[in-house]
């Protein structure tokens, strides 16, 4: 459960950019998975893909529900990012730079349209295959590739507008 909760929380956080909302959404995801476990069919894909699909649906619902209240500026609730143990070997200055860049990319991600954002998160942050993303988003593979491509270009433009230049 720890592995799944960590993965789901990361998807939610990268999509919303808010830790509190991500925690609530992760709980909702597990609650929905727990209640609809009977509807899961292994023939339609792996369990992780199914969970990701449930997460994506909840994120889109949440996005639509909070559209009016959303402030288009930074949605980060100023909670510091807690890096995992793999980053322990880096020098403090590198760590600080990486943390800063990570925060900027995260901020740019939240400015992407939800369609492009979810595609980029699933492909470039969750490292899912095109076929898995196709299952999660329930769209043809050509659409998946197009969204990922447009998402990357749009993200690069947003970062340029923010004056961020990832090395």
């Amino acid at each position, binding site marked *: *459960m*720890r592995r799944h*909760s*960590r993965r789901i*929380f*990361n998807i939610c*956080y*990268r999509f919303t950019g808010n*830790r509190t909302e*991500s*925690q609530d959404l*992760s*709980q909702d995801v*597990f*609650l929905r998975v*727990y209640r609809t476990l009977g509807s899961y069919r292994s023939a339609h894909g792996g369990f992780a893909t199914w969970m990701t699909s449930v997460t994506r649906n909840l994120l889109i619902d949440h996005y639509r529900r909070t559209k009016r209240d959303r402030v288009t500026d930074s949605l980060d609730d100023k909670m510091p*990012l*807690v*890096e*995992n143990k*793999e*980053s322990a070997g880096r020098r403090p200055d590198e760590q600080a730079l*990486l943390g800063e*860049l*990570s925060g900027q*990319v*995260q901020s740019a991600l939240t400015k992407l349209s939800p369609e492009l954002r979810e595609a*980029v998160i699933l492909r*470039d*942050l969750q490292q899912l295959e095109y076929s898995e993303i196709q299952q999660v988003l329930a769209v043809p593979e050509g659409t998946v*590739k197009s969204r*990922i*491509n447009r998402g*990357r*270009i749009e*993200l*690069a*433009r947003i*970062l*340029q507008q923010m004056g961020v*230049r*990832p*090395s």
Partner: protein
Amino acid sequence: MNWTCEQTEARLSDYLDGLLQPVEQSAFNLHVNTCERCAPLVAAVARTLGGLYAMEPVEPPAELENAILTATLGAPSWRNLRRWLKSLQSPRFVYSMASLAATLIVILAASGFSFSKPKLAELRPATIYRNADRKAHLVYAQSAKFVSDLRVVYEIQTRLNENEQNPATREQAVPQNFPDKQPGRTDNTNPSAPKQQNRADEIGRSLRVLASQFPVFSGSVGERRMP
């Protein structure tokens, strides 16, 4: 191969993921190296992709797991109770309880407990012990008798088998002379072979004639046939 700015933008991810054909790759490179619009775009997207890959997983809050468990399975106390109840469904526990129940039923049945008309007095330890002791003795006596009967039957069976396997022994065991019976007859009253019986009767008649003609033989024949 002619390559346009629109193609560069449309196939940018394929280029970055290394999915372009060699011909497309060279056309792409040729165009990007000479296009003032596409070169910075490709570089910016490549850097963005590097930035995305450099983002490390965010550590979820420590209380997330407990919050998920509470949301799905309920509060910790109820969760523990549910876990305990679920453990009762394990095959090991079910087998243990089944064997325990079977043992109790056997003990109660052995002690003479009536399941159709149960009485509280029959459940007293002293009563159970006394009844069980009596039953045990009865069962032991019946078992001993059964084993003894079984032994006798086995012995008879063994003897019969031995006789069937060794006919010589069987013939030796049968007496040679039967004074009360006619020659050639077996123990059964009905002769199994009529011809043999007729021959025996004929021999008997001849002996009687000889005895009457030769008195010398009358003693021995008379001794044998007519004492």
